[in-house]
C-alpha cells in the first residue's frame, strides 16, 4: 500500500519535472507564463496607479472670461490653480512665437469640436454681479459648459470641480449672500453693522491653491451643452475601432504566421524556387492580410450600424479611408511579427505580448483620455491610437476627409516602414 503510494508520488514528481524541463526549453511558453503577466501588470499599474504618469489624470478645460469682473478673474485664477484641472485661457504658444489671444466663446467651442479639449467653461457677462445663489430657481447668471460627449467623464468632473472651486474662490460672494439671507431672516442690520461686515468681506484673502474635497452644492448655475452633436450611441464607433484594431492585429499576426508554416513545411522553399520573389511573396501575403482586415472592420461597423444604430452610411468616404489605412498598417505589423520570429510558438508569444501592450496603451481597451498625460503621449507610438483617433474624427466629430491626413499619413507611412523592416528580416528565407 505504502509502496504503491510512493510509486505514484514518484510518478507525479517525474511528470512535474518533465513539465518544467519542457517549459524551460520552450521560450514562447516561458514568456507567456511569466513575462506577459508582469508586463501587463506594469502597464495597467502605470495607467491606473499613476506611477510614471504624474498622478491622477487631469481634465483639460478651456476657460473664456466674457465678464472680466473681479469675481470672474478670481474664479479663473482658482480654476488655473486647481490641481485636478488643466485649465487654459488661451491656446499654448508655439516655441518662439508670441502668446496667442485668449479664447473667445467661438474659438473655445471650435476647439472642443475639434477634440483639442473635452470641455470649455464660458463665464458670461454679468456673472460677477450674481455669481452664486442658494437653492433652485434663484437669481444667478449661469456659466456655460460646452463639452464633447465622446468623453462622458470630463464634463461631469469639470462641473463638480467648478462647484468646489466656487466654495473656496469666492468666499466674499458666499459671505455676502449669507448676510442677505441673515438680514431677511433677522429683520435687518444697522448701517454700522452692514458697513463693518462689508469691510470684512472685502478683506477676504485670495483662496489657497489646495482645498478640501469637492462639493456639489450647485452654488453656480450651469448651462451644459454638447457641442459635438447629438449622437446615438456615441461610443459605438470608438469601441468598433478600438476592439476592431486589437482583433485585426491578432488576425494579421495569424495571417503573417502562414509564412512560418510555409517555411516549416518547405512550401516557402518551393514558392521561392518558382518565379515568385521574396518581395512579391511578402506583398501578396500583406495584401491578403489587409483585405481580410478590411472585411473584418467592415463587418464590425455594419454590425454596429444594424444593432447599435451607428451612423455608418452617412460617413462612408471617411470610413473607407480610415479602414484602408488601418488595414494596411495592421497587415504590416503582422508581416513584421512573422519575419522576426523563427518559429510559430515564438511568433505566438511575441505577438500576444506586443498586441496586448499596443492595445492597452493605444486605447483599444479603454479610452486614452482616462490615462495620465504621459501615457496618452506614449499611446501615440501605437497604431491603435492613430486608428481610433481617425475613426473618432469621422464618426464623432464629422470632420472632413482632409482632416484625416495626420492619421492616414502615420498609418500608411508606418505601414510602409514596417513592411520594409519585415522585408529586411525576410532575407534569411531567401537563400541558404
Amino acid at each position, binding site marked *: 500500500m505504502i509502496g504503491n503510494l510512493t510509486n505514484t508520488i514518484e510518478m507525479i514528481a517525474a511528470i512535474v519535472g518533465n513539465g518544467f524541463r519542457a517549459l524551460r526549453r520552450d521560450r514562447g511558453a516561458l514568456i507567456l507564463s511569466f513575462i506577459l503577466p508582469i508586463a501587463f501588470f506594469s502597464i495597467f499599474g502605470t495607467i491606473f496607479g499613476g506611477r510614471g504618469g504624474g498622478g491622477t489624470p487631469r481634465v483639460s478645460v478651456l476657460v473664456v472670461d466674457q465678464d472680466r469682473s473681479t469675481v470672474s478673474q478670481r474664479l479663473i485664477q482658482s480654476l488655473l490653480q486647481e490641481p485636478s484641472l488643466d485649465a487654459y485661457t488661451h491656446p499654448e504658444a508655439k516655441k518662439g512665437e508670441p502668446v496667442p489671444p485668449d479664447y473667445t466663446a467661438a474659438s473655445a467651442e471650435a476647439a472642443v469640436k475639434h477634440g483639442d479639449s473635452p470641455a470649455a467653461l464660458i463665464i458670461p457677462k454679468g456673472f460677477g454681479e450674481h455669481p452664486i445663489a442658494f437653492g433652485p430657481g434663484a437669481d444667478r447668471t449661469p456659466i456655460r459648459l460646452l463639452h464633447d460627449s465622446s468623453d462622458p467623464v470630463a464634463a461631469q468632473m469639470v462641473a463638480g470641480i467648478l462647484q468646489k472651486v466656487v466654495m473656496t474662490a469666492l468666499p466674499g460672494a458666499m459671505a455676502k449672500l449669507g448676510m442677505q439671507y441673515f438680514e431677511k431672516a433677522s429683520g435687518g442690520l444697522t448701517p454700522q453693522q452692514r458697513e463693518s461686515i462689508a469691510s470684512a468681506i472685502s478683506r477676504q484673502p485670495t483662496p489657497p491653491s489646495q482645498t478640501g474635497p469637492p462639493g456639489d452644492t450647485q452654488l453656480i448655475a450651469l448651462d451644459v451643452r454638447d457641442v459635438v452633436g447629438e449622437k446615438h450611441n456615441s461610443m459605438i464607433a470608438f469601441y468598433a475601432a478600438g476592439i476592431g484594431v486589437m482583433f485585426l492585429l491578432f488576425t494579421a499576426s495569424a495571417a503573417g504566421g502562414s509564412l512560418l508554416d510555409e517555411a516549416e*513545411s*518547405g*512550401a516557402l*522553399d*518551393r*514558392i*521561392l*524556387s*518558382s*518565379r*515568385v520573389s521574396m518581395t512579391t511573396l511578402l506583398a501578396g501575403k500583406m495584401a491578403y492580410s489587409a483585405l481580410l482586415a478590411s472585411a473584418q472592420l467592415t463587418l464590425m461597423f455594419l454590425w454596429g450600424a444594424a444593432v447599435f444604430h451607428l451612423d455608418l452610411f452617412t460617413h462612408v468616404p471617411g470610413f473607407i479611408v480610415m479602414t484602408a489605412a488601418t488595414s494596411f498598417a495592421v497587415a504590416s505589423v503582422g508581416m513584421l511579427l512573422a519575419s522576426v520570429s523563427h518559429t510559430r510558438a515564438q511568433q505566438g508569444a511575441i505577438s500576444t505580448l506586443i498586441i496586448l501592450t499596443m492595445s492597452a496603451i493605444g486605447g483599444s481597451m479603454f479610452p486614452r483620455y482616462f490615462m495620465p498625460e504621459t501615457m496618452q503621449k506614449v499611446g501615440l507610438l501605437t497604431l491603435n491610437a492613430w486608428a481610433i483617433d481617425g475613426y473618432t474624427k469621422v464618426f464623432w466629430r464629422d470632420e472632413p476627409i482632409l482632416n484625416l491626413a495626420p492619421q492616414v499619413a502615420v498609418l500608411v507611412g508606418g505601414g510602409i516602414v514596417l513592411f520594409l523592416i519585415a522585408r529586411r528580416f525576410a532575407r534569411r528565407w531567401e*537563400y*541558404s
Partner: protein
Amino acid sequence: MIDNMIPLRIGSVVKRFGGLTAVSGVSLDVGERACLGLLGPNGAGKSTLIRSIAGRVLPDSGTIRVFGQPAGSPAARAELGWVPQDLALYPLLTCRENLEAFGRYQGLRGKALSGGVAWCLEWAALADRANDTVKTLSGGMRRRLNMAAGLVHRPRIVLLDEPTVGVDPQSRNRIFEMVEELRAKGATIIYTTHYMEEAERLCDTIAIVDHGHVIAQGTKEDLVAQAFGGRSDVLMRFASTVQNAAAWAVERGGTLEDGAAHFAVEKPTDIGPLLDAAIRDGLEVIDVVLRRPNLESVFLQLTGRDLRQ
C-alpha cells in the same frame, strides 16, 4: 555541344555551412533526356546540391548553369521543376487548387495553366481526387501530388529529391511509373536517393556522393567494373559463437558488416579456399552467398560504409 544546349552543367561547386562542407568541388554534366541518380547516404550533400541547382542555395564557389543560364535566374527557374523532399503543399487547398497555385507562381495563365493542371492530375493518378483537400489524401497520394506540383509548368529538367521517402511499396511503384513516364516524354531527370534499387531501376547514370564529393560516376555496370573489375561478392555468415570473425575476414582481404564477412573473388571457385580456411581455423560457417556486386557493394567498397548508415 554548345553550352546552352547542355541541360545542366555543374562546375566545381562548393558549399559550406559554418565549419561543415556540404558540397566539396562537385562537377557534373547532365545531358538531354538523361536520368542521373545521385546516390549517397543521408547527409552526403545530395539535397544541398539539388537545392543549389534549384537556386535555393547559393554556392560559395563554382558555377551551375541550366541550359546555359545561371541557376536561380528566371530563365533557369522556368526550365526546372523541383520536387523537394518535404511535402511542400497547402494542406487546406484541394489537389487542383494546389496545382493551380504553383502553376501561377511559375507564370502560367489561361489554357497553359488549365492544361498543365489537367496533365498533372492524370500523371499523378489524382484526377478522381482533384477536388479533395490535401489533408484528406493518403501519404502516397500526397507524395504524388508533391511531385506533380513541381511539374505543372512542364519543365525540361526535373529535380526529384528522395521522392519515395516514407511511402508504402505500392505507392513507390506508382512513383517509379511516373518517373519512367517522364523519361519517356523526354525530360532530363536528376534523382536523389539512398535506395540503390531505385537508382538501378530508374537512372542510366549514377553519381555516388559521400561527404560532399562525387566519388564515382557512370552507369551501374561502369561503377561495378570500376570498383570490382570482374570480381564477385561473397557473403559468409558464421555461428553467433564466433568471436574473432572480424580479424579473420580482414586477414583475408575482406570486411565484416552486420555479422557477415564480405569478400571479393575473381571467380566462383575461389569460394572453396575461403571455406577450407574457415573450417581449418575453427569458424562455424552457416551460410555462404555468391553474387555479382550491386551499387550497395560499390558504395561499401568505395567508402567502407553502408548506404543506409
